[in-house]
């Protein structure tokens, strides 16, 4: 049994950088956009539970097998399973497994992505994120600087944190109602 610290380290190092590809995979194989975030969350949960018995030798195939099985199970339960869906899912393995080294963002790419992510935020949220990240202000100091309540700062920070995380991991914003399919760059497999 591995402890949480080991699993956390592995999850950050090996799993999260694959988020763009995982989201793309789920979205590609699941018609209901509103389910994508939930499904990804389920996959993470299963991936962590499985890793407790020992870390997989190769994270990518391990995670995509879990994702595929989970989608099949969900489809069966929802009685919407079709042969195309299952057949499609059986084929996915061949698409992945390459370019392991490329999933980490280069510094330039990370910078560009941060910039894009910031640009997507509302001006107020962006300002709060900048005060936090650049000036290192805490909640109370930010509230004083902007003359608003701490609760509002907390709420806006939460929005900024979640949106930027979605953007940095290339997984598409879960907070918005509908997100365009990620382009090839965001899948990370061909960067």
């Amino acid at each position, binding site marked *: 049994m591995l402890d949480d610290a080991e699993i956390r380290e592995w999850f950050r190092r090996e799993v999260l950088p694959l988020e763009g590809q995982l989201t793309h995979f789920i979205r590609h194989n699941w018609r209901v956009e*509103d389910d994508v975030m939930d499904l990804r*969350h389920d996959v993470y949960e299963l991936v962590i539970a499985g890793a407790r018995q020992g870390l997989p*030798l190769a994270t990518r195939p391990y995670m995509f097998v879990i994702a595929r099985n989970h989608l099949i199970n969900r489809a069966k339960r929802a009685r919407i399973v079709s042969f195309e869906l299952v057949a499609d899912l059986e084929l996915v393995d061949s698409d992945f497994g390459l370019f392991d080294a490329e999933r980490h963002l*280069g510094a330039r790419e990370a*910078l560009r992505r941060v910039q894009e992510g*910031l640009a997507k935020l509302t001006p107020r949220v962006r300002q709060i*994120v900048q005060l936090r990240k650049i000036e290192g202000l805490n*909640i109370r100091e930010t509230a004083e600087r902007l003359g608003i309540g701490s609760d509002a700062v907390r709420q806006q920070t939460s929005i900024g944190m979640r949106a*930027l*995380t979605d953007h940095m991991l290339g997984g598409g914003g879960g907070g918005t109602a509908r997100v365009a399919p990620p382009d090839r760059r965001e899948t990370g497999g061909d960067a």
Partner: protein
Amino acid sequence: MSRARQTNLEAADWLIARQDGPLSPGEQSRFETWMAESDGNKAAYWRLEYGWEQADRIGALGPDTVDSEEELRPARWSRWWVPMAIAASIALVVGSWQFATQRASMTIGKPVPDTSAQSFTTPVGGKRLVGLEDGSRMQLNTQSKVRTAFTAARRQVWLDQGEAFFEVAHRKDQPFIVYAGDRQITVLGTKFSVWRDGGKVVVSVLEGRVRVDEMKDNRLMRSSIIVGGDIAMAEGAATLVTARSEDKVESALSWRTGMLTFDEKPLPAIAAEFNRYNERKLVLVGPSVAAIRITGTFPSDKPDAFARLLRDAYGIAIDERETEIRVSR
């Protein structure tokens, strides 16, 4: 609201609360209970924590991205400059200040070795500590070659081969620049090492900040700022900065004490690392040994001891020959 969205909201609340200062004992135990509730909670929390850290790059964007916040600029820069200015003025008093005004004009990116250039080398397995004339110290690792040229305008070091660790004396108007292949590392007051393996350059920063510039035909292509705890790996047009990890930098620099430190490193990489230091090479035979990962600290000059450890711990066959040690399963 979907389950994932709800969990994500809770995770964000906890992360914000924990980053805002230590939790009270009651809150701390509620946080631990929440984390222990499900792997889904952990997944959401670790994911946000990671993503939010990735967004730390905002700090490296430079002031011109803070377009909507003009007043942020002075605040941001003053935080850097105050401690650096103090450090620089101390170094001015301490450092030996014996430079005649030499040829000071050199276009940036087109270094010309000075006539007073010095050259330092180490053999395979060698290590050498060099005190430089400005009070900086340089430690050369195995099989390395370094040239230096100091003028009143700048201190320049060429890493032609191998690896070197630098402890740089602060000099406000005399930048310390290390040239490694097509990368140019400008020191902003710091301790760091540079390892060059052909076109690949790895910069590990222990303290302070350095700027890594990519040069092409004497023109500056792009720059990255690397701070303490960061490791930058550069090859061709790519520069990869690993997430901040003081531990990783410490292990990258453990060669200075004659030790090699590995954290879950695959055996082929470990063998390559040992082989940098020894004429007697570790040779891996067959694919099954390549998958083994090792964590630990080992003396860099004892590949045979390392191989015997592998044999005892993993039941791996070793064959010790005069010029190589063959490892197979």
